[in-house]
Each structure stands twice: as structure tokens, then as C-alpha cells.
């Protein structure tokens, strides 16, 4: 892949040396490079799995580390008995509820602070101080406040994503070009129109960065929330497996966490591709 780039620059930079008449530049763009890109992305993952398989069967990873094949088998068993679906469903519901609250609060606070100076003056200081608190340290407090049931778990998942989203929404709005706002105003755009047509689209790239971070923190909080006092969820599955020394099941759960992270990233990428189609950033060489 990189060789074609090299060839092109060679031709472009030293036409006199090659001296073979008119230069031939192959147009970049939607050729085989783009079709191969998803495959190329998979190569990294495949390499990790191969290393893992080789490492496990050669015994480099210790005798208790299962190989990918064993993990797949364990996952098959869990799926066959319906356990995996059940626990995954419970976990996904927790994350969905927590994120729904956390993202909504982060977005609303960020919008308020970004759009109204008064709101920024009131909200920003408390949020900045709370932000420095590792929210996972709140577990005991939340158990005292909300009990050991679902509420404290959802509260823990909800609190973390608020901060990155708030920060990025606020900074995204602050980063919108004042000249565009002025030009829109001179076009007679209403206050609501200004927010919908100018400020939010302008802040969107930064907001999506915040979304990415917020979703990551959501998953992290799920892991911690399910460590204690649960009887369902993938976290419980892992704790339970630890009791019975089922390292293969522990690895199944780890792989699930990894896959959830991967899907989250793909999801945000999809939004970015659709919503930021107007942008042209540096995409790497």
C-alpha cells in the first residue's frame, strides 16, 4: 500500500531523472485502497488473536491462561445455556439507563454554560471541582445514598460521562468562529436558528470527541458498578467465574468488554462520517 505512494512521489519529485515523457499521476481516492481499508483495520485485531493463540499454546502466558479457542468454546457454552444473553442484557440495560441520564445532563449543562454567560458563571466552578474527583471513588457514598440495588449502579454509570461531555460541548461552542455568528446574525437568523444552524454544527466535532470519551467512561463505570452486590450482569459473570477458577469465562467477559468498546467506537465513527461530511481534515498518509 505504501509502495504506491512512494512511486508517486518519486515520479513527481524527479521527472527529469526518469524522463519518460508526461508524468502519470494516479488519482488518489475511491480505488482499491478504500475498499481494502476495512480489511486493513482487521489485520491488527487478527494479529492480536494470533499472538494470543500462539502464546497460550506455547505456554508463554502461564498455564492458567486459556487460548482463544478455549474462550470461544466457553462462550459457546454460555450462549447455549442462555446465560450470556441474560447477563449481557442486564448490563446493557444498566449502561443504557446510566448513559441516557449522564449524557443528557452533560449535554444540557454544556449547552447552558456555552450559550449563557450567567449559566457558565454558576455551573462551571462546581463542575470543574467535581471533575477532579475520581467518580469511581463515589461507590461507597452512592451505596449509602441509594442502597446496594440498581439505583446506585445506574447513578455510578451516569455520573462519569457528564464531565467529558460537558467540557467538550462548552469548548466546542466557545470555539465557533465569531465571524460566522456575526454573518448569520446579519442574515436575520433567529436566536433558535443561530443555535441550530450555526453554533451546534460548529461545535459538533468537539461534541463528538466528548461523546467518545463519555461512552468509554460509561463502560468503565459498568465494570466497577458490577463488581459488588450483583446477581446479574457480565460483571457478575466474571466474579462468579473467579470463584470457580473458570479463567476461560473470565476471558469471555474481557473479550465482551473489548468488543463493546470496539462497537462503541464504530458507532461514533459512523455518526462522524455522516454528520461531519463537510469537513476535510488531515487523514494521514
Amino acid at each position, binding site marked *: 500500500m505504501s509502495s504506491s505512494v512512494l512511486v508517486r512521489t518519486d515520479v513527481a519529485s524527479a521527472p527529469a531523472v526518469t524522463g519518460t515523457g508526461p508524468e502519470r499521476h494516479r488519482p488518489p481516492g475511491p480505488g482499491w485502497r478504500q475498499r481494502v481499508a476495512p480489511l486493513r483495520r482487521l489485520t491488527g485485531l487478527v494479529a492480536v488473536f494470533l499472538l494470543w493463540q500462539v502464546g497460550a499454546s506455547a505456554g508463554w502466558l502461564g498455564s492458567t491462561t486459556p487460548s482463544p479457542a478455549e474462550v470461544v468454546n466457553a462462550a459457546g457454552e454460555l450462549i447455549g445455556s442462555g446465560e450470556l444473553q441474560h447477563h449481557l442484557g442486564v448490563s446493557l440495560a444498566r449502561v443504557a439507563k446510566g448513559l441516557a441520564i449522564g449524557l443528557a445532563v452533560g449535554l444540557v449543562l454544556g449547552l447552558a454554560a456555552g450559550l449563557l454567560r450567567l449559566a457558565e458563571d454558576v455551573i462551571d466552578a462546581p463542575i470543574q471541582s467535581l471533575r477532579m474527583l475520581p467518580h469511581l471513588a463515589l461507590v461507597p457514598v452512592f451505596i449509602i445514598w441509594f442502597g446496594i440495588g440498581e439505583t446506585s449502579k445506574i447513578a455510578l454509570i451516569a455520573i462519569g460521562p457528564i464531565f467529558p461531555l460537558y467540557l467538550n460541548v462548552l469548548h466546542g461552542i466557545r470555539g465557533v468562529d465569531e*465571524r*460566522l455568528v*456575526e*454573518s*448569520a*446574525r*446579519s*442574515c*436575520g*437568523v*433567529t436566536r433558535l*436558528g443561530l443555535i441550530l*444552524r*450555526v453554533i451546534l*454544527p*460548529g461545535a*459538533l466535532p468537539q461534541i463528538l470527541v466528548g461523546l467518545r470519551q463519555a461512552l468509554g467512561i460509561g463502560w468503565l463505570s459498568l465494570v466497577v458498578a458490577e463488581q459488588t452486590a450483583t446477581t446479574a450482569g457480565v460483571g457478575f459473570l466474571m466474579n462468579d467465574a473467579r470463584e470457580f477458577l473458570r479463567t476461560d469465562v473470565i476471558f469471555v467477559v474481557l473479550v465482551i468488554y473489548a468488543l463493546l468498546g470496539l462497537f462503541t467506537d464504530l458507532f461514533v465513527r459512523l455518526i462522524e462520517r455522516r454528520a461531519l*461530511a*463537510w*469537513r*476535510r481534515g488531515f487523514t494521514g498518509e
Partner: protein
Amino acid sequence: MTEVKVRDARRTFDGRDVLTGAELDIADGEFVALLGASGSGKSTLLRAVAGLDRGATGEFTVPDRRAIVFQEHRLMPWSRVWRNVTLGLSGSDLRGRALRALTEVGLAARADAWPRTLSGGESQRVALARALVRTPELLLLDEPFGALDALTRIRAQALVAKLWADHRPAVLLVTHDVEEALRLADRALVLRDGRIAEEFVVDVPRPREVDHPRLLTLRRDLLRALGVKTSESEETS
């Protein structure tokens, strides 16, 4: 009928007086060019007339239906070209109105393009279409061709001349380009020391040839008013 009437316009930036009681009248359908040395307050006066500068004081009588074209195109990069044209408008058939305005500037084919795919001249023409679609009584042009290359600038000037002839809004054109002012305007004003110091009536019929003898005289006088010494003016003085 007077479209624009400005009396005693004042503006101070950090203790520096930029406008010190400028007065300005623009008649209905009149094309006025405003010239001045760099930093003389041309754009400040235009922004005050546009109502964009809350720090400016004075008496401003300005029509409500007005539109501005800035030096930079200031199109929303996240909106398609036609959406940019109708920004802030409501009502039915917005796309049709946008297309008609874009046709006038010769860009109907780019209606669905993203602004970043346009050249500098094309972007500026879209900005003109965005102003036109509002059928303004007053069109404010803040050095709209300043960032264009020489050839594109000449085409853009011809386009503005044509659009003005077709629609006849009152125009206030801020520029530092004497030729541009003489090619387009009915009157050229020179801003100096915070007020309108000199006025030149460009009494040459359109379309104007650049080498019209009257224009050459006016050009020399304007340059002298702007404090530029040309070889011609040295010869005559």
C-alpha cells in the same frame, strides 16, 4: 429619497477615536464607494451602518432590508451552498429562491456542493447570492473582492455592476481599490481623521472604459486625497 442617513457617527476603540462625527447620505439606488487609508475606519463605519457594532454612537437611519458581503465569504462550512444562500429565511420554496439567486451569479450548478469545494471567487459569488436573495434595499460590501486575484476580481466587479443595474439597491462599497471605486460607484467618499473628508462624483456614463479621460483625472485626485503620490500628480503639481 434618502435611503441611508448617518449623522455624527462616533466610535472609540481603547481610547483611540476612529470615527469622530462622520456623516453619510446614500440616495435610493445610489452606488457609493467609501475609501480611506488602512485603519481609517472605513469598515468601522460600514459595520456601524449595518448595526453590527453596538459600541458606535450617532444617528443612523438605515433600511431594515439590508444585506452584507464581507471580505471573507463567511459561509457556514457545514451547510450546502443553497442552504447558505437561504440562511435565516423562512417560507415556502426556499430552494427555488436559492436557485434563482445562484443562477444570477452563475452558480446554480453548485447548489448542492459543500462550501469548502468552492474557489475563492465562487465563494464570494455565493455570498453575493446570499445577499441578493433577501432583495435588499441597502447592500453593504466590505472589501468583498480584497482577497481575490486580479482577474477574478475584475469578473466579480462586473458581476456586481450587473446585479446592481438589475436590482438597483443602494450600495455602500468599502474598498481600498481606487479603480474599483471608479468602475462601480456614482460617488466616491474619502474617509480621513474619522470623518468624510472629500467627495468625488463619478460623472462618467456606464459602462465605463478604464482609460476614459475623466476617470484618469478622478483617479489622480482620489489618490491624492488618499495621500498617495503618483508620478502623474507630481508632474501636475
